[in-house]
C-alpha cells in the first residue's frame, strides 16, 4: 500500500514530456511557479490554464492517474475557494443571508486563487509523473553543480538521495516483516485505543532503527571496498542529454511569460 503511494507516482509512457531532460523539466517547473504569480485577470489565467492543459495532454498520463494523485489535494483547493469566498470584504455585495455575506471580489479571488493552486499542483505532479526519482536526482545534481564552488556538498546530497531511493523498498519490506513478527507476538497495530496504537509503533521503530544502522555500516564498508572516495575524480554512468525539444519547451515557456506580462492588468 505504502509502496503505491510513493512509487505509483512515476507513470511510464512514451511522451514528449517523458523524453525531456530532467534538467529542463526542473527549470520549467521552477519558472512556472514564478510566472504563475504574474496572472491577475481572466485573460492571463486563461493563458496559464491553456498552457497547463496543453502540458497535461502532452504527458499522455491517463486521467485516472492524475485524478488519483490530485484527489487528496482537491479538498485543499475547495477549502481555499471557500475561504476567499466568505472572507473577502471588497467589491459589491452580491449575496446576503444571515451572517453570510458574499462580495463580487470574493467570488473573483476565490476562483483565481484556487485555480492558481490547482495549476501549480497539476504541473508539479506532471514532473513527478513523467520523471523517475533517480532522473530528478541526476537533474538536481547537474543543475546545482555550480554550488560546488561554494563548497555546497552537491554530490553527497545526490548520492544520499539515490541511496535513500534505493533503500525505501527494502525498508518497506523490512517494516512489513517486523510488523508481522510483532503481530504474531500479540501487538495490535490496527485496533484498540489510539494511545495503545501509538505505543505499538515503538516495537516497530526500534528494530527498524537498529537494522538501518547496521545496514548503513555495512553499506559504507562495501562502498569503500569498491573504491568509493567521494565525488572527486568520479565519472558518471548515467548521461543526461539536452535535446532540441528541451530548448523548444523553454522558449515556449518564455513566450508564455511575455504574453502574461502583456495581458496582465
Amino acid at each position: 500500500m505504502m509502496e503505491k503511494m510513493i512509487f505509483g507516482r512515476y507513470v511510464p509512457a512514451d511522451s514528449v514530456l517523458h523524453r525531456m531532460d530532467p534538467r529542463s523539466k526542473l527549470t520549467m517547473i521552477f519558472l512556472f511557479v514564478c510566472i504563475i504569480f504574474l496572472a491577475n485577470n481572466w485573460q492571463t489565467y486563461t493563458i496559464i490554464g491553456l498552457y497547463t492543459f496543453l502540458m497535461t495532454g502532452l504527458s499522455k498520463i491517463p486521467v485516472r492517474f492524475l485524478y488519483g494523485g490530485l484527489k487528496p489535494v482537491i479538498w485543499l483547493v475547495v477549502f481555499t475557494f471557500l475561504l476567499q469566498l466568505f472572507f473577502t470584504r471588497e467589491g459589491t455585495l452580491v449575496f446576503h443571508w444571515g451572517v453570510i455575506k458574499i462580495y463580487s471580489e470574493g467570488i473573483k479571488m476565490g476562483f483565481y486563487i484556487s485555480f492558481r493552486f490547482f495549476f501549480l499542483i497539476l504541473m508539479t505532479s506532471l514532473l513527478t509523473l513523467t520523471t523517475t526519482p533517480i532522473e530528478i536526482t541526476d537533474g538536481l545534481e547537474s543543475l546545482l553543480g555550480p554550488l560546488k564552488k561554494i563548497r555546497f556538498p552537491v554530490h553527497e546530497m545526490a548520492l544520499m538521495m539515490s541511496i535513500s531511493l534505493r533503500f525505501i523498498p527494502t525498508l518497506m519490506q523490512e517494516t512489513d516483516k517486523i510488523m508481522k513478527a510483532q503481530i504474531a507476538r500479540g501487538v495490535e497495530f490496527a485496533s484498540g485505543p489510539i494511545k495503545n496504537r501509538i505505543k505499538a509503533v515503538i516495537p516497530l521503530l526500534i528494530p527498524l532503527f537498529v537494522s538501518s544502522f547496521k545496514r548503513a555500516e555495512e553499506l559504507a564498508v562495501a562502498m569503500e571496498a569498491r573504491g568509493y572516495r567521494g565525488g572527486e575524480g568520479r565519472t558518471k554512468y548515467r548521461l543526461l542529454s539536452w535535446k532540441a525539444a528541451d530548448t523548444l519547451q523553454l522558449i515556449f515557456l518564455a513566450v508564455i511569460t511575455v504574453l502574461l506580462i502583456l495581458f496582465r492588468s
Partner: protein
Amino acid sequence: MKKEIVSLKDVTFQYDGQERNALNQVSFDIYEGEWLAIVGHNGSGKSTMAKLLNGLQFPKEGRVTVCGIELNEENIWEIRKKIGMVFQNPDNQFVGTTVEDDVAFGLENMGIPREEMIHRVEDSLNRVKMDQFLSQEPHHLSGGQKQRVAIAGVLALRPAIIILDEATSMLDPRGREEVLETVRALKNEKSLTVISITHDLEEAAKADRMIVMNKGEVFREGTPDEIFSMDEQLIALGLDIPFSVKMTKAFREKGIQLSKHYLSEEELVTELWTSRSRM
C-alpha cells in the same frame, strides 16, 4: 612453482575498545590462481582478516603484501582495484538504484570513461548471466541474483583476487550453487585467485587449500584432505566434517576405492550406484 599473490607476516590486529586481539600473529601466503577456503568459528577473525587485505583496516603489527605491494594508507586505492570483495548480506552491498547502476558504481569511483563503462557493465553482467536484468531494481531480485550482480560489480573492475566473505550464507541451496558456479567458471576463465570465507564445509572441501582459524590465530593450513583427516580436533573447534567426507573415509577404510578423494553428496551417490551396477 606457485607464486604468492598475498602474504601476511606476523599480523596482529585489535579493534578499538576491545581487550582481545581480533588477530594474533597471523602469517600465511595465498598463491596465484588458487581457491583458498577460510573456515573457523564465529568471531575467529575471518572477516577482520579479509578487511586487512584491502585496507579497510590496518594491522597493529606485521605486514600485509598484495601483488608485491606492501599495504599502507597511500596505496589502498591501487590495492582495492586488485581485490574485489563480496559480502554476506545481498541487500547491504547493493548501492545502485538498478542493476546496471550498481555494477557501474565501482567503475564510476575509478573514473573510467563512460564508453568503457557501458562496455564493461554489459560484459560483466553477461558473465554472471544477469544481462537480462539490466534496468531491474534490487527489490525485484532474489538474493542469489543480487549476489551475482555484486560479483559483476567486482568483475567490472578486473581484479586479480576475489574475496567472498560468507557471500552465500544467506542464500538458499539453489542460490548458493548459482553463485558458486559463477565464481568457479570465472576463476577458470580469468585465472582469478579466490578467497572464500565460509561456514559451509561442503564448499570448503572443494577448495584447493584450506585455512582453519581459531580465536584470531591460524590453527591449521593444508589441503581439504589434510584438514579433514584431523576430525576430532575439528569437532573440538566447533566445526563439523561434511557427511560426504565422513562417508568417503568410511568407504576407504572398508577398502572400497573411489575415483576422487573428496566428492560432494551427489557425486558420491552417482559414483556408488554406477560402480554397483558394473558388478
